[in-house]
């Protein structure tokens, strides 16, 4: 047996076999270090994703490429490190094009799961909306380059029977993507192909016909967190303050009204809530103009045209607190699928070249009275300052109201793992 050494993680002495991987040792001892490219027995470790960044003997670095040795001092849960790891996951979301609600891997995706674990409600980075292709050419697989985080797992692990690589990085820098070898891919057995899909921590490798095989609720990361104490402690209701009536305004910009639907989806609780809040400007009341200042403004949808921007700015001026509700409002969401394509191409596809259009009569509508489409869909936070974000597509009703009650009456709350979702 290998020599035992003592290391310290966040001040706690820990015994481990010399040379073991630090991520593994931490996990065995109840310390959660996020990881995406790492998996056991991979030697040398890949060290690509950087989500496991900790401080080792005073220097920041990824835990997964550290072998434990005597006296090693490791910091895991210092605030700056927690935030740094969070930011790296956020970077993956802003760099790729991740539309969870329409993703086959949603619920089974390691990236999405890590973001839940780290309670990421929005990314601090602007989404880059880089145009990427989807490669349907191979026999059994679809390469969805928008979702790949370049973790290298498939490159190293998926080989055909004669030992040749099926996947390989192409290009470099921000143009890097993972190419697939059609010839080698065709040689994979069904099991090998499925293994490739499973090895991928995101929805980048999809085996045709093997998607959506599990319904919601049965997917790997649907119900419970892999951390012991995800979220806060049990709810402590502090109804100390008087629950005086508050004024709420809502708007749906470039959204689908799904978030508004969700807002109403609280069954009989709605009756209690009506006692406590008065809706001012909102599609729910059909009040078109602000009658007075509001305590809180809730925005569904991002900004797709100039009118959206005007409305949003008015909300900012008239509301004390402004909340982005749902993915579209937070970063663009599904309408932002057009962001990788120039506006002109979108319009021509929709109004001129589409199948059902009569070419003789088709024009692209333009009139001073109709709102002007923006070059791309903008996140609300690119237009005004947003105070809070509630993720989901749509967010669950309980999540919404817990958050709003907290904002309005400082009611403490805790979000269950199963309530925090991007889809």
């Amino acid at each position, binding site marked *: 047996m290998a020599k035992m050494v003592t290391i310290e993680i966040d001040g706690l002495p820990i015994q481990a076999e010399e040379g073991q991987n630090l991520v593994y040792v931490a996990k065995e001892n109840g310390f959660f270090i996020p990881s995406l490219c790492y998996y056991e027995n991979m030697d*040398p*470790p890949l*060290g*690509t994703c*950087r*989500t496991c*960044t900790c401080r080792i003997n005073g220097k*920041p670095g*990824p835990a997964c*490429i550290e072998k434990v040795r005597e006296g090693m001092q490791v910091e895991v849960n210092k605030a700056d490190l927690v935030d*740094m790891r969070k*930011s*790296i996951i956020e*970077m*993956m979301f*802003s*760099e790729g094009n991740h539309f969870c609600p329409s993703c086959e891997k949603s619920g089974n995706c390691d990236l999405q799961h890590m973001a839940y674990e780290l309670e990421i409600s929005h990314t*601090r*980075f*602007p989404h*880059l909306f880089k145009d990427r292709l989807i490669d349907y050419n191979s026999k059994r697989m679809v390469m969805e380059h928008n979702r790949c*985080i*370049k973790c*290298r797992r498939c490159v190293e692990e998926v080989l055909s029977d004669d030992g*040749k*690589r099926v996947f*390989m*990085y*192409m*290009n*470099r*820098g*921000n*143009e*890097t993507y993972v*190419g*697939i*070898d059609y*010839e*080698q891919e065709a040689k994979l057995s069904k099991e090998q192909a499925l293994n490739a899909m499973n090895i991928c921590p995101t929805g980048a490798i999809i085996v045709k016909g093997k998607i959506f095989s599990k319904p919601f609720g049965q997917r790997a990361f649907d119900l419970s967190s892999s951390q012991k104490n995800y979220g806060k402690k049990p709810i402590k209701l502090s109804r100390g303050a008087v629950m005086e009536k508050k004024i709420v305004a809502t708007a749906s910009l470039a959204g689908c009204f799904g978030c508004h639907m969700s807002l109403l989806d609280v069954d009989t609780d709605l009756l209690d809530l009506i006692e406590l809040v008065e809706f001012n400007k909102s599609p729910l009341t059909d009040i078109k103009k602000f009658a007075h200042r509001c305590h809180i403004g809730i925005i569904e949808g991002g900004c797709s045209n*100039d009118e959206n*921007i005007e409305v949003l*700015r008015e909300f*900012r*001026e008239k509301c004390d607190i402004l909340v982005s509700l749902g993915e579209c409002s937070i970063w663009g969401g599904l309408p932002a699928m057009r962001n990788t394509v*120039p*506006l*002109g191409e979108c*319009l021509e596809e929709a109004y001129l070249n589409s199948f059902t259009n009569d070419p003789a009569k088709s024009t*692209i509508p*333009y009139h001073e009275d109709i709102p*002007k*489409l*923006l*070059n791309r869909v903008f996140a609300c*936070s*690119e*237009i*005004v*300052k947003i105070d809070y974000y509630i993720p989901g597509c749509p967010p669950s009703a309980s999540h919404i109201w817990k958050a709003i009650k907290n904002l309005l009456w400082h009611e403490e709350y805790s979000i269950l793992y199963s309530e925090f979702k991007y889809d």
Partner: protein
Amino acid sequence: MHQSGADRLFEVEPLRSYLLNVLRNIQMSEGYISDEKISLLAKKYDVSNVEVEGVVTFYHFLHRKPTGRHVIYLNNSLTSVIKGYERVKESFERETGALMGSVDRTGTFGLFSTPCIGLSDQEPAALIDFYPFINLNAIKVKDIINSIKQGASPADICDYPADNIRYTPISGSVFFSDFKEGISLVNAFKLSPQEIIEELKKSQLAGRGGAFFPTWMKWDATRKQESTLKFIICNADEGEPGTFKDRVLINSQAASLIEGMIIGGYTAGASYGIIYLRGEYFWLAEKLNTRIQAYYQKGLLGKTIGGKDGFNFDLRIQMGAGAYVCGEETALLESMEGKRGEPRTKWFLPVEKGYLQMPTIINNVETFCAVARIFEKGLDNYCEKGIPGSPGTKIISVSGDCSLPGIYEIEWGMTVAELLELGEANDPYFIQVSGPSGECISMKEKYRRISMLDLLARKDIRCGGALTVYNSQRDLIMILSKYAEFFKHESCGICTPCRAGNYLIERKLDKLRNGLASREDLENIRSWANIMKASSRCGLGKTAPNSIILAMEKFAEYFYKRLYHTDNQHEGIVAFDMEAAISDYEKYKN
């Protein structure tokens, strides 16, 4: 095409190490790497097609589409921009009929831009079929293209870039004095490897590639490895924009480089040496190879060198194919093995498992030259130059807004002000030291010394080799954007913070350039840059945000002036350019 000396492998090297050469040769003879060639090579090397294609697409001198019979790479680095890149570009486009980034209709010329080609002292410069053409202007471009159209070969009409050695120390030059060939070897061979390590320790020689790692430690660690197969590798990738000292050393001091490597082999017990020469310096390869062959003829390379029984040392050149990151030592190893130049993790060090997983010393050109000079002229001669704690001299490539761009061999301890005066920089404002990944300084700091000391206290400046001067007319944000763009392209793309981070920083700089940034944006840049520094996998990502972080500190007022300022904006409303945002749609107004 001439003999580059790169067309051989040692008997201990696997065929795969030859892949980059094969690809370069195909590129040069056929103008691109076709699907057929990829399949053919995949069969030959018994790998899948994607694996070969992955290598091809990594290097920017290897193309998947035809590039024309003559390939022009015009340097688009900042120094080139300052000296008139735009007009030269237009003139190339006009004369060749090819737009930048494409091939003309007749398939004669391919025109591409490329970052710094190591000729910052004679910009604008371009490589045509990898032969240098310097100090370009519209008329010169016209003449060159006309001659080529009339059948002249770029090899025959190219320029011979001057060394431009502008300054050597009054007390005598270390690097550029007459080099008496073989003396350093005779002196070194009198000592045991252990004694050589001791000499190097006393010299305090530290890596000249920019990291300043003590050379003796690296050599000693490799010496102590038990393997019988070890390698000595010279890092001649010199990709840091603004740096051209290694070019001049290879051109004028190849003998000292070769001898430095032989001494390395003797010390570490290695019998093979490889010089990894950046693709841009192909025009230096033939000359360097001639020097190497001369050493073979003199019995100073090959078997039983200098009569030293049992000491064999072979040397060859390996050409790169265009990738800045391959200057990072572990990326360089991958590249030499015929792979994509992706840096390795620090799981093993090169001194333990380097090239082909064997113990390997990797040093910069200047480091090897310095070793040879120490043994040629003696340790005392070297140590009496410089300042206590930082003995010797340093070669600095000066370029940008100054009248005398070129090579300055300074004694450690010279101040920035003195160096700027020597270079006749009349209106220095923003000085970039050690290239984009280095440190920027303002004129408030002009009395800082250049030495290896006090790095942490930031009193002295450690300079890896370049000093780029920008005058007060230059747009600082533009400079920094250009740097971010460079890193965005040159990142190997394998780790998240660098691949995405440089892109994100570039976006923020765009915002700043468009006058839409707020204080919060500056705060974001600072914070994101620090994330990149702390979490990137290799030196590229870790150092890429250096200049922006420092510039924001040192030129705070300048940045403040570039922010969005207005009095009548409601709090919480973010600056936004509506006109730009609806510009696409407005095209449909009839």
